[in-house]
């Protein structure tokens, strides 16, 4: 421990603590703009400058390490003048349309301008007049509002290793872009939306489909059918003042009904369905010497990443569609048939934590039903907006149930939203299906949590099945590099790998309530496992509705009809 003085307070901190964090511990909130607790600090903005005794120049608190005996001043007249001056400089290049901006009320630049009372701008205003880039499926880029903090580049390079964007040009011409003459839609961007998560202003945001959904709801000819993802039920409450991890699924169903959705189903149903299909696929590959490791396929950000950077591993990826897409197909085939609805009139809607799901729903091949399997994807944030627009008091709504037939789910399904959840769900079923024995404990705790790469091995009747789980695409890359190298040596370090594009899993998706920090993701994860623990049925193969669907329609996992409707293929990019 080292001790230092921040203004008038002397405190003790562990070695390696930044002056910024030390100040926070001592009760002083030094202003920051470019820094985020989850990301490597770049030191671009200069808002956190502090005056350290003995240093000729002011120092950036975010990248300066606390040292024994340091005397730091955080609130001198020079520093106050400096902070206001910096904000004036930034605001001089920033559009003035706060009232029309999607980040109005949650913009970090706005908050600082208010905190430091920037009431006049002495500099001449200049804006770049750049066109918006709406070419990506899930993300819109408005570089006029970009302040060049660099968080999105840090995320895209360090956390996700997609490297779709970078800084271009220099000086005040600096702009972040996918390349010269490259649009976001034609770049390697996987639509994971993590850049949106960390953007402090309205420069990056989700591509909304709210208007289209209102139009469908208002159209008497259309039958709107919705599904809700696992990760949404422990996060939507945050938009209405509730704690991260609060299970609000009952209220979600109630809200959807109030909005006018005709039939409400649960993506957790098709998560159980996915386990049956994928579990069968895994067991088959293991017993018949098929391509291993098998890699999960429910994360569309991962799928595009794999198609771009690991095309040689595409035949390892499970042919199973994601739960979203499986349910969309079932809705427009089985459900439409059994309920005498013309699938032409069905609007298949999904509520997702994820911006990449918008890309997935629009993939050309996702029309096995004969129609777009999923028509619209609304992120958690978009649903929150619709709820507010409809005047619903979400936090005081009564719990309701979804519509039967495609909504029953087990604990195994709900943990799909957490990193390691798909793997754990798969093991629960694969073990029992293979051995016909009951598992002693259903809790594989070493697969849980926010850790980036997790490994485990499970004994299934004397065979050691080695599994690995990764969340965040940089971690996926690390894991897959190991697989590629091992393949060259003829080795197979794992039988089964779960990959989720976002840190922590889907609960950290690009469409989740902001702020979407790692700390909040950890809380949401706990919410899902808590729900799992409390559910009466916790194994996918015991889901009666799913078994009923097989009996009445799909016959059995891996059947011809299952393959036609519930499986897909991939394309190297």
């Amino acid at each position: 421990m080292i001790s230092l003085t921040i203004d008038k307070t002397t405190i003790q901190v562990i070695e390696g603590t930044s002056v910024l964090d030390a100040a926070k511990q001592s009760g002083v909130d030094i202003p920051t703009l470019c820094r985020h607790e989850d990301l490597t600090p770049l030191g671009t903005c200069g808002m956190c400058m502090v005056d350290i005794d003995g240093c000729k120049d002011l120092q950036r608190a975010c990248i300066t390490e606390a040292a024994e005996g340091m005397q730091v001043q955080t609130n001198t007249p020079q520093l106050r003048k400096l902070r206001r001056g910096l904000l004036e400089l930034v605001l001089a290049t920033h559009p003035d349309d706060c009232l029309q901006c999607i980040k109005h009320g949650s913009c970090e630049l706005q908050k600082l301008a208010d905190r430091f009372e920037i009431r006049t701008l002495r500099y001449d205003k200049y804006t770049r007049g750049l066109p918006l880039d709406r070419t990506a499926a899930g993300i819109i880029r408005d570089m006029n509002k970009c302040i060049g903090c660099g968080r999105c580049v840090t995320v895209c390079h360090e956390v996700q290793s997609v490297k779709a964007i970078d800084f271009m040009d220099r000086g005040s011409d600096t702009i972040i872009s996918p390349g010269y003459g490259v649009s976001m839609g034609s770049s390697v961007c996987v639509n994971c939306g993590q850049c949106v998560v960390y953007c402090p202003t309205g420069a990056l945001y989700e591509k909304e489909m709210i208007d289209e959904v209102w139009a469908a709801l208002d159209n008497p000819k259309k039958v709107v059918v919705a599904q809700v993802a696992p990760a949404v039920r422990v996060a939507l409450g945050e938009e209405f003042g509730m704690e991260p991890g609060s299970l609000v699924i009952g209220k979600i169903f109630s809200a959807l009904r109030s909005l006018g959705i005709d039939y409400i189903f649960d993506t957790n149903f098709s998560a159980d369905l996915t386990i049956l299909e994928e579990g069968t696929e895994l067991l088959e590959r293991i017993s018949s010497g098929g391509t291993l490791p098998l890699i999960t396929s429910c994360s569309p950000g991962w799928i595009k990443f794999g198609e771009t950077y690991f095309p040689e591993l595409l035949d390892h990826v499970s042919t199973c569609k994601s739960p979203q897409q499986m349910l969309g197909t079932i809705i427009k085939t089985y459900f439409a048939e059994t309920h005498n609805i013309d699938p032409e009139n069905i609007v298949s809607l999904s509520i997702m934590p994820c911006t990449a799901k918008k890309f997935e729903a629009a993939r050309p091949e996702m029309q096995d039903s004969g129609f777009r399997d999923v028509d619209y994807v609304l992120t958690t944030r978009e649903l929150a907006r619709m709820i507010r627009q409809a005047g619903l008091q979400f936090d005081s709504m009564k719990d309701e149930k979804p519509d039967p037939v495609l909504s029953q789910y087990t604990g195994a399904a709900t943990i799909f939203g957490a990193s390691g959840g798909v793997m754990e769900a798969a093991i629960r079923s694969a073990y029992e299906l293979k051995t016909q024995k009951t598992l002693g404990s259903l809790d594989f705790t070493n697969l849980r949590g926010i850790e980036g790469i997790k490994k485990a091995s499970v004994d299934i009747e004397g065979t050691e099945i080695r599994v690995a789980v990764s969340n965040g695409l940089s971690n996926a890359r690390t894991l897959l590099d190991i697989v590629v190298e091992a393949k060259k040596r003829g080795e197979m370090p794992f039988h089964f790998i779960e990959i989720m594009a976002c840190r922590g899993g889907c609960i950290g998706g690009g469409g989740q309530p902001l702020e979407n920090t790692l700390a909040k993701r950890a809380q949401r994860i706990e919410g899902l496992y808590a729900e799992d623990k409390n559910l009466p049925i916790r194994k996918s193969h015991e889901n009666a509705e799913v078994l009923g669907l097989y009996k009445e329609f799909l016959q059995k996992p891996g059947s011809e009809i299952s393959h036609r409707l519930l499986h897909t293929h991939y394309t190297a990019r």
Partner: protein
Amino acid sequence: MNQTDYFLKFKNLSPDIHDYQKANGYSGLKNALTLAPDLVVEKIEKAWLLGRGGAGFPTAIKWKASTGKTPSYIVCNADEGEPGTFKDRFIMTHSPHMMIEGMIIAAYAVKATKGYIYIRGEYPEIAINLENSLLEAEEAGFLGKNIAEGFSFTIDIIKGGGSYVVGDETALLNSLMGNRGIPWSKPPFPAKKGLWGQPTFINNVETLACVSLILQNGYDWFRSIGTPESPGPKLYCISGKVTNPGVYEAPMGTTVKDLITMAGGVIGTLKAIQIGGTAGPIYTSEALDFHLDFTSMNSKGGILGSGAIVVMNTDTSMAEVLEVEMRFFAEESCGKCFPCRYGTRQLSFMANNIVLGKGKREFLELMAETADIMQGSSFCPFGKSVEMPVKSILNNFSGELQALIRQNDYIREVQI
């Protein structure tokens, strides 16, 4: 007047290795190789060689940080970009081997395994000639494997892409590694963690040339020239309104007045002198008595910098000088940090508007304040230094700027 010609004599010789060796070249390297590397560092310390790139940092202190960890690198900073500076061009054109010999001695002293000459992209012909010089040195056994027992060293040339800020140490290293030329935060210093996380020692062309001279002629010789705090001969670059602009060699501490005399005197009537490059203050004729060495210039609140002196006479408009220099900062800013990225642009806008007759009364105070913001919060010395030209012009020549601003309204109102 005292002029030396340890560098300048090479103007009359060819740059090839034979002429260089005839003039005692590579005897420095031979001397160095008879000593333990630490003793070579000691000689540089006793000579008290200060870096000639602009910062004036004691070279031996930089080298002493070497721990012998491998691989480690010597980088020659040949990205001469400071306006008013052209001495490294001179050395690389007329006596490239002086620099190369110094680089090899440096590598030996710090136990570096690989060298890079990072030369600005605007010197392509010099780069080609340097390649030949390196081949000559290799043929003579001064580069390559086993230059001496346990000492092998090769040098690659990297050509820059046109950026001033990559003259800054860490920005240069980033550029060399293939990244955007933006600086990174120190500590850790490059001597500890530089290229690819390895120890890296960066020295300016003229500094390395001095290393050769010191090992050739001894540290006592070096200290006998110049001042006690800033010893040695110095290449000064004088340009602007003097009769004979050019590179002049004189002992450190030579006065501005003497230097101008060497350059044939001022054309017309002296108005202003900028010392140290675009990042240095612009003085009135008061600077004539200044001594051009690191300590004296620092004590005047200025810098010696690269030793660039630009002379302006009464034909020069200071509003124009401000506009030129603010545009330089705006175009060369790397764009990493907010204060410099936005500050340089606003300063350039204001300076342009003053010249265009659209200046506002508030500009002068606002420019000074912007310079303060940049001094306080810029990430690297580039942004911090803008206050020197800005404030010196505002302090010494504000009348001229104010006149342009005041006249806007007046002329509009009273014109016939």
